């Protein structure tokens, strides 16, 4: 097991790895972007095929609406699938706290000195967990609900103090 967890599950499991821990927080997504693309694509092809059939029969004004609908399906796919693979991976080991964030097409990796990081819980627009270092702040736990964020913050704080 590589420590990755589908986070919005009931258990928020922290995995010890040589005194540290590694946790991957993902959205719950029951379908892969490829699978969703197939579903949307099949629908768009069916709508366009019907539109083309009517165009050949002389009722060509069905086709533009089928095209608009294919665009709407494409938009739905892009909007949903671009965030389907988002994750946050938080690793603590050898005095370093590493946070890897994938958000849509962007991914970033932050390394923080574990001794100088504070875990702050803020109640702004709901519960937010922020890692505060000497120079920067980083929000984590965005894929968790409010209750799980509080547990996550408490657990991370405890680990950082060990």
């Amino acid at each position: 097991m590589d420590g990755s967890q589908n986070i919005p599950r009931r258990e928020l499991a922290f995995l010890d790895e040589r005194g540290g821990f590694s946790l991957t927080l993902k959205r719950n997504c029951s379908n892969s972007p490829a699978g969703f693309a197939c579903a949307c694509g099949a629908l768009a092809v069916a709508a366009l095929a019907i539109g083309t059939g009517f165009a050949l029969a002389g009722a060509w004004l069905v086709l533009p609406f089928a095209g608009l609908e294919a665009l709407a399906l494409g938009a739905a796919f892009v909007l949903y699938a671009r965030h389907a693979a988002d994750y946050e991976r938080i690793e603590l080991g050898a005095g370093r706290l590493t946070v890897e964030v994938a958000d849509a097409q962007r991914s970033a990796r932050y390394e923080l000195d574990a001794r100088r990081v504070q875990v702050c819980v803020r109640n702004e627009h709901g519960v937010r967990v922020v890692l505060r270092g000497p120079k920067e702040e980083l929000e984590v736990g965005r894929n968790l609900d409010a209750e799980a964020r509080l547990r996550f913050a408490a657990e991370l704080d405890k680990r950082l103090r060990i």
Partner: protein
Amino acid sequence: MRWITTTNHKDIGTLYLWFSFIMFSVGGLMAVGIRMELFSPGLQVMDPDFFNQLTTMHGLIMVFGAIMPVFVGFANWQIPMMIGAPDMAFARLNNWSFWLLPFAATLLVLSFFMPGGAPGVGWTMYAPLTVQMGIGMDLTIFAVHILGMSSILGSINIITTILNMRAPGMTLMKMPLFVWTWLITAYLLVAAMPVLAGAVTMTLTDRHFGTSFFNAAGGGDPVLYQHVFWFFGHPEVYIIALPGFGVISQVIPAFSRKPLFGYASMVYATSAIAIISFIVWAHHMYTVGMPVTGQLFFMYATMLVAVPTGVKVFNWVATMWKGSLTFETPMLFACGFLFMFTLGGFTGLVLSLVPIDIQVHDTYYVVAHFHYVMVAGALFAAFAGIYFWIPKWTGHMYNETLGKIHFWLTLVFFNMIFFVQHFLGLAGMPRRIPDYPLMFETWNKISSLGAFGMGLAQLLFLYVVIDCIRKGAPAPQKPWEGADSLEWTHLPTPVPYHTFETPPVVK
């Protein structure tokens, strides 16, 4: 303001349900007007033109304003809870999908006040009559566009939600059948709606922009309109019926205290019905003139629908077989659905036969048939669903005695209205006429009395719902012993505003 800006699936579900009830009342009042006119031979209360406007608007409002939205209301409330998702995939889009509806409904109703009144062309909006209508026709075309847009946006949302937001362990073949039927319905909507949009747009351009798609005088073909319309129109029948099948597939197992018999075959049968629905459209137009080969193809294809539908009816009955049955109101409506919808299915089979259809085409036999499918099918299923889930939604039990009275009144009055219409149709009474020969008077009187009674019975339904919301007894988490989907097993009653922010793990 909360109700305007809300993105919560439960709020939006509630909006859909109330909107649907309002439109059901408006469409129902139109039906009462129609039946008042038909109470006796001769012209009584309205001129023939207004009669035609009422039949047109009754059909459009009931199909697009009442029946479709009621099941979208169920979808909004139930799909996220049944698959363990926190909300719909596109919550804002969900809000827009709903708020398009009141505008469309307003346009439809406003068409009555335009010069020339509402279109009197029938809900099918056949060309070339549509070319001759007043500005009310344009409002109707615009309304149909908006309604279609709402349906497409809603469908894309439902497909995205079901495919991507199921809880861990909730595989496709573990989904409640209601969710399956909605997934297939959403596919049907996405495939069929552009065809309707194209049909009404071509009507619009024929009316105002000098095209002649359907105008024979300009080289067009009025029959082409019928092909285009019914290519949408027949799947539309299943768009209305399939979510009803889904509701019944939740209700019958719950009150039989048994799992649904033949779950997989139900899924395949639903898919089969959806696919076949695209190859049967011309059974609505046997009389326009088509080659015998075409007639035979559409006749056999239509008869084929009876196979998967028969599988479903068999499975519902088999679910009840040796079950510990109780007959609370939802189950009564489900049984009413089963009897009445099957009867409507049988008359559909009769109408699929070309020689018979040519005899009874455009008669009250057809009116009776499709009302057995639409009212006893979709509306009874909707009532079953409302009585089934209202304790979970509101936290209160409804008055069981009044619920049962509502069922029996609705069942009796429904059959009073429509059963006798089979006789009228077989005797040759055409549909869409405000006057008729004396020989049809008795059955028409019975039918009209039934319509007045059915309208009054729905006031009782409104009372039961309001009474339930205001002062119903507190409902337990699972008031129905045999109910086993996630909303009953994992969520308290009433369901909190936000649910499944952390999805459950389905074993």
